[in-house]
């Protein structure tokens, strides 16, 4: 299997139709993020190599790839948490290195992996803290607008009842919803999510994913999420980006990804491609006993 062929086939042809939101047929695609020739090396190892991609408004993009492919690193570099993207990454046409963090936070909200340790903190306060980027405030006091925004965010995420609870007492699904509510309160149009459904049980995962889908539609967010399981969040995205060994090896619609040869080249594993008998949804399943 030749990886380069895939790459050309997919990257050379970013089908414009998938980039447009359904409700806005006339809106010309307007890239909010342009990445050109992004390479990141730390010590002697190359984490990302010559990445080129664009992100259009209101897109829902899934980032996939095997462990260690650089998915999380890519998100972190694009968000400016890790160095390397100062000139190669441009948000709104402005190089990342020139963005003050506070200004960028009004554009981009990052939802980290839920497994991260969080100190004891009441849910409402946690969501309120996400309002930091909105204005200089005297002595760390949130004002009435901030409280209103935090309240609305909790309501939109359907977790108003958790407001008084402490973060450390929540279940995984509840914590993830709190993180999402905080991102809502931050009022940034672009969201990065790092495996939003990891470590959740079936029900909580469905809840979190449907919440994300609903918010994305209602609020018109542009969402980029790292996805581990293709059937959960990748195949129903608008667009899929696949990384392998720090290189971008696929960038296109999920329909083009559901291809045995392509999946084998990305994950070095045989896959079966099935169709759900009820919904007609495409499912991919790794073939057991054939690594």
């Amino acid at each position: 299997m030749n990886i380069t062929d895939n790459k050309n086939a997919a990257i050379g042809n970013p089908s414009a139709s998938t980039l447009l939101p359904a409700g806005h047929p006339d809106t010309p695609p307007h890239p909010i993020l342009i990445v050109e020739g992004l390479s990141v090396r730390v010590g002697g190892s190359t984490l990302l190599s010559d990445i080129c991609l664009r992100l259009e408004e209101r897109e829902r993009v899934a980032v996939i790839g095997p462990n260690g492919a650089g998915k999380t690193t890519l998100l972190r570099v694009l968000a400016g948490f890790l160095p390397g993207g100062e000139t190669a990454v441009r948000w709104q046409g402005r190089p990342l290195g020139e963005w003050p963090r506070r200004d960028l936070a009004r554009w981009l909200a990052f939802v980290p992996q839920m497994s991260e340790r969080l100190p004891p903190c009441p849910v409402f306060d946690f969501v309120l803290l996400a309002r930091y980027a909105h204005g200089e405030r005297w002595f760390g006091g949130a004002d009435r607008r901030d409280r209103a925004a935090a309240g609305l965010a909790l309501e939109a995420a359907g977790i108003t009842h958790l407001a008084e609870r402490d973060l450390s007492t929540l279940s995984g699904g509840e914590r993830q919803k709190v993180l999402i509510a905080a991102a809502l309160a931050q009022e940034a149009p672009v969201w990065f999510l790092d495996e939003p459904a990891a470590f959740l049980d079936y029900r909580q995962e469905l809840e979190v994913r449907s919440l994300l889908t609903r918010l994305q539609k209602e609020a018109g967010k542009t969402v980029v999420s790292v996805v581990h399981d293709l059937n959960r969040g990748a195949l129903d995205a608008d667009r899929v980006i696949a990384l392998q060994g720090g290189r971008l090896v696929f960038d296109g619609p999920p329909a083009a990804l559901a291809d045995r040869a392509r999946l084998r080249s990305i994950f070095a594993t045989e896959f079966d491609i099935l169709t759900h008998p009820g919904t007609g949804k495409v499912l991919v399943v790794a073939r057991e006993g054939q690594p």
Partner: protein
Amino acid sequence: MTPRRFLLLTAGIALVTLVLAPLFGAQPLDWRALFHASEGDPAPLLFWQVRVPRVATGFLAGAALAVVGAAFQALFRNPLATPFTLGVSSAASLGAALHVRLGLAFPFFGLPDVCLTSFLAGLGAILLVYGLTRLRGGFSTARLLLAGVAASFLFSSLIMVVHYTTDAYDAFRLLRRLMGSLSASGTDTLWGLVPITLLGAIYLASLSWELDLLALGEELALSRGVDGQGIRRRLFFATCLMESAVVALCGPIGFVGLMVPHICRLMIGNTHRFLLPASFLVGGTFLTICDTMARTLFAPAEMPVGVITSLLGGPFFLWLLLGPRSHELEV
């Protein structure tokens, strides 16, 4: 207890302590003597020139150490971080030790010159630790912590060397200094401490929102718009300056910076907008009370206040650590 009520309560206690503490001492003072002093009565002089500056110095030193401790715990996301973690205080002590050993003497605007040497040594350590941290670019808290702890050990052993080579009299003076004491404080030390403590505390309080976010973790703080490196650098310099000043004037007084913020956290939570003023008030009150005990318990002899804070603080902290609310003791 709501944070606001706790602040009111601690402010009340602080006020009462500040008013009453100067009346206690090796020689009890009658407050009536202050207003109806007969000719030649030393009471008003003792009160205004000795007791009041000392109590105020103690209050400000305790307040500064506690506020710095609270900020350090958030900056390093580590409940054991104290104002002494980064070696600034051992450097300040080393400065004082060298001053005593070399018999330096130079007058400077009325400030005791040993304090000045000590403060300059503290500043040197700040720059050294900062430089070491920056060697490989960036400004990471992990590297800051390691560089600081290493510097701290280095300075501590240098103090030992100086101590070992001094004669008995100076060695005793030195030992008293290293225990931390307010006995040398007069009006001059107070005026040295007032601006740096008050400005520093106000500055740290103005970074409350940033501290809240830093305590949540690097990535969340960055994603909410906190300029991680810049804020950490500002916090580092502000806290270390305050600490150098306190150690230079009063010696290393332990446990206030570790314990007081944790007590306040248990009472009102981790919101720095309330935590910092609460630490200021409780830290000041605690050190004032400890110093009053130091002055009176073995009068006319005087104990170094650092001994009392640790004697009281150690068991109390263990009780916190192992007691029923220990699960809340987390930054």
